[in-house]
């Protein structure tokens, strides 16, 4: 009986907590329960959520990607540079960012697989490299239309309407102009990664690599290719996050995106606790991102000061990790 209770707690505890939190805020904070508020929560977690889904893929193969935040801000600066200074059309700017993300992922993967650099160190190095690199073309300045370039000319290009549409368009749902484009993209990517990791043979082999790399290799799995693929997915999703951030801001802001890495890693790790998976999974990651978003939105609406936010996120993360690792280890007779 006790075992079954524990099992139930591990499996549904986190979802029940999420539900309880929504009910509590709905009662305690007027205006919390409603489509506008929901859209706002989703909007706030969409970009971190997209990054978190990428990092989930690297966690699945037993790796880790610390460079996602820097890839996102690099994509932000690259799209701005491409459109404002080089005056490229939208499609070129978007393509450049995605290609940059894939290339960074490829380099990360090669560093880890071919040069045997430990994953944390390789991606940490890549993070520093990108943070530095994105500042070099503009001497550390943010990019906006009308800025003066080093050769004395003025940047004539602008963010095109089509590009801004990616970050600012809102679809009609229940009420006019409710659902922002980034949220739609977030949900789309979440579904794709969920299907890929959970239901394709590639996903299954990636989980096998994460669980016992040697055994996976000895059944003929191309381990290196899958690991590189995981880092490339992570790089591409991070660059999508950066594009959406740029499209929302409408300028190449050098200072934005500071919290992206930690927030998205937290979401992916909180995801371990969802449904008692005790391993990285796309559904859990999406719920993890949502959990943090709802908590912060509710607290903001109840007038909690902004500086408590990081503390709250940290507390949720620690609680989720205890949930995952302590309770699961106590469960007698594992099984899915």
């Amino acid at each position: 009986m006790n075992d079954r209770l524990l099992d139930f707690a591990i499996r549904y505890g986190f979802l029940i907590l999420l539900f309880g939190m929504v009910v509590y805020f709905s009662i305690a904070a007027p205006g919390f329960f409603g489509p506008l508020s929901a859209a706002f929560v989703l909007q706030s977690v969409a970009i971190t959520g997209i990054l978190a889904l990428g990092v989930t893929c690297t966690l699945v193969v037993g790796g880790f990607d610390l460079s996602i935040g820097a890839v996102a801000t690099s994509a932000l600066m690259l799209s701005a540079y491409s459109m404002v200074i080089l005056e490229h059309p939208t499609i070129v700017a978007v393509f450049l960012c995605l290609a940059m993300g894939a290339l960074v992922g490829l380099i990360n993967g090669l560093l880890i697989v071919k040069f045997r650099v430990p994953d944390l160190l390789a991606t940490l190095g890549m993070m520093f490299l990108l943070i530095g690199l994105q500042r070099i073309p503009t001497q550390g300045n943010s990019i906006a239309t009308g800025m003066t370039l080093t050769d004395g000319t003025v940047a004539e290009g602008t963010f095109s309407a089509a590009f801004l549409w990616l970050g600012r368009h809102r679809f009609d749902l229940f009420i006019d102009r409710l659902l922002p484009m980034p949220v739609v993209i977030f949900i789309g990517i979440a579904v794709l990664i969920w299907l890929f990791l959970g239901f394709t043979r590639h996903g299954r082999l990636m989980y096998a690599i994460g669980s016992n790399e040697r055994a996976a290799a000895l059944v003929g799995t191309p381990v290196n290719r899958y690991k590189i693929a995981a880092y490339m997915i992570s790089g591409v999703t991070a660059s999508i996050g950066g594009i959406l951030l740029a499209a929302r801001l409408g300028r190449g802001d050098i200072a934005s995106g500071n919290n992206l890495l930690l927030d998205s890693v937290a979401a992916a790790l909180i995801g371990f606790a969802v449904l008692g998976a005790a391993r990285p999974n796309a559904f859990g990651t999406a719920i993890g991102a949502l959990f943090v978003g709802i908590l912060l939105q509710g607290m903001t609406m109840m007038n909690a000061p902004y500086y408590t936010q990081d503390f709250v996120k940290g507390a949720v993360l620690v609680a989720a990790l205890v949930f995952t690792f302590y309770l699961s280890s106590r469960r007698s007779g594992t099984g899915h």
Partner: protein
Amino acid sequence: MAVDALRVNGLQKSFGKNHVLRGIDVTLEPGSVTVLMGANGAGKSTLAKVICGHHRADGGSMTLAGQAFDPVDAADAIRQGVVTVHQSIDDGVIPDLDVANNLMLDRLVERSHGLFVRERHLRAEAAKVAAAMGIDVNLRARVSDLSVADRQMIAIARAMARAPKVLILDEPTSSLSATEADRLFALIDRLRAQGVAILYISHRMSDIRRIADRIIVMRDGAISGTFDTEPLDYEAAVTAMLGHRMTELDVAVQSGTAPVLELTDLRLFEDAAPISLHARDGEVVALVGLLGSGKSRLAEVLYGIARPANGAICINGTDYTPRSVEDAVSQGVFMSPKDRGTNAVIPAFDIADNMTLPFLKGLSVGSFLKASRQKTRAHEMVSQLGIVCQSVGDGIDTLSGGNQQKVMIARWLLEPAKVLLLDEPFQGVDIGARRDIGRHIRATAKGRATLVFLAEIDEALEIADRIVVMNEGAIVGEYKNRNVDLAALVADISGAQLTATGTHP
């Protein structure tokens, strides 16, 4: 009468229901090398771990130089003068420190050592230790840059810095080359001359011949033989170790039809003799040999993990040179590796996922897995092999060792193989599961060549049509599994002929 360095009386040790040591009596004399032999799982490592304080004994007693000896932990055993060098060398050294620091590490731990390291003094002391041991390496070199043999020497020298009464070496040559091993033996000779009692755990015959003063053989948790009269009877020792009681199992010997796998003048190592071997359709060939006999290497070569020095491999008449495991599998060569815990089991997966792992492609539509098809295939194998489980959705770690192994074997029976390689398929498997696996392998043998790599004669007699003996990377004997001349088989395994010819080149 001289006092024995270490005396072990009626030692007992169990892990759960598993009775590993069933009353062991051993004495070690000062200035003498006692070799402890035993097959995998005989309990020799457990015995070493009890003596060095890693495990507490459940029964029996030990005396060290006449005094009662009951170490509470490894540090206590070392303080009392019993020092152990374990199988994995890197447990004995700190790779990122230099040689001098490694040699002096135990001094740094002592409380009497001051706060600051006196660099010059430390180096002078280290040089003394190194000289006493006959170690000739640069004391400033980082240990991680040294060869395996040098690291081994340093681990032993560190142990010897405490002037122990008893030194235990657990399979010290398992990762050394022949010349490197010679240096180790020279060191052991030196220690023997200093009056240290040495317990040397190994089942490598060449080592044993070189250094043994006495041989103790363990089998199934008990001493099955003691050999201490000159000249030492190595063959009898191997027989005691392997235990060749005929099993009751009746093998209907097949000679097979067309040859499937053909090895022609294959050299596993640069300096090994060439191997030629045929394995036929429907035939189960057991390759037996001790550790280091080259049978693992042969399995690796056939599975695309290692490259042979030269020679040709043919499968069904066409040339076969696998570039990778993936390549081998796609050409119909499958291998169930030894040590399933590290090499085969995916602990996070359930039975069905573990079993179907190599063949997910065939069980998917596009890239999407058909879970129902996976389950059906797994179900079939579960009933064919008699795997005891509630459902194929159970986690693999809920199964017993024998059932886990059945899943690992079933993995490679899902699709027809041209060549099936089974490396130690009975490792950590109870007798019931062993019979089930053997029966099933034999029953499905048609349509492929099956190679089974084994260290135990019993197991080979139970499963094989033909037994091929390997020693030092070469084939030294071949037997049809019918009225096998066990004495000759044992002689081949222990390499008796090799030395006979070896002395007259």
